[in-house]
């Protein structure tokens, strides 16, 4: 019935989903960002349970340690009109929620009725970081270099977009 891995999965999944729901529903923006950080940390724990150690730690390092803080900084830099309470939902929120429910319904039907996902767990693959590095440097060298280029251009682009323009005096 509910064996040990399933029990930990239920706990982690409830933490992740609670964080995600809080991130989408709360009114205070900083609380939303912190709830997102909790949700991402929960996801990192789920990755660790799936024996993907490197991805779990990379998720903590990149998402919780950098992206969450970036979002928090952006929230703090764009607060001007805090005092007057504004409606938090957009004018077409019902359609949006309906679309999300429909998407989830299609996914759930696909997952629960497909034969391909009814396989049981094989014993955990023993992946080491050395194997990952090997694959990155042989089969995936092109995506690695392209990712480097992408990150460089994103860095330069973000700085340029957010830079204060100098007014010519």
């Amino acid at each position: 019935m509910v064996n040990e891995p399933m029990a930990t999965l239920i706990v982690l999944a409830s933490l992740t989903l609670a964080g995600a729901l809080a991130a989408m529903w709360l009114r205070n923006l900083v609380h939303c960002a912190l709830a997102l950080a909790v949700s991402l940390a929960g996801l990192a724990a789920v990755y660790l349970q799936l024996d993907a150690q490197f991805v779990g730690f990379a998720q903590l390092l990149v998402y919780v340690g950098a992206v969450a803080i970036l979002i928090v900084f952006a929230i703090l830099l764009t607060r001007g009109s805090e005092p007057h309470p504004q409606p938090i939902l957009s004018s077409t929120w019902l359609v949006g929620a309906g679309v999300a429910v429909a998407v989830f319904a299609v996914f759930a039907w696909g997952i629960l009725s497909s034969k391909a996902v009814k396989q049981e767990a094989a014993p955990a693959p023993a992946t080491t970081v050395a194997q990952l590095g090997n694959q990155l440097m042989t089969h995936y060298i092109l995506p690695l270099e392209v990712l480097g280029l992408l990150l460089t251009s994103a860095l330069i682009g973000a700085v340029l977009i957010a830079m204060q323009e100098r007014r010519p005096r």
Partner: protein
Amino acid sequence: MTSLQAYLLLSALLFAIGLAGALARRNAIIVLIGIELMLNAANLNFIAFWRFGPNPEALTGVLFAIFSIGIAAAEAAVGLALVISIYRHQKTTDLGQVDSLKG
């Protein structure tokens, strides 16, 4: 329900929550948070299929997730820079009010 189905349902639920937030909230930054949740849900999907799939030694799922994390970080940076820039011009992050190109 097998454990693979449990992980996939979690991933689908996260995706749906992120999608609902991205479509239904007014603030641009919350929309970006929703997009990050959707990306993470897709990553979870990849890792779950890698773990329970036929060929885990090829490490395809893990590497896809790693690249996805890197790209998501870049996209978050550029997206937030855009939000900050729009705030400087329009003095608001409310997406309902940034409609000067509306026909």
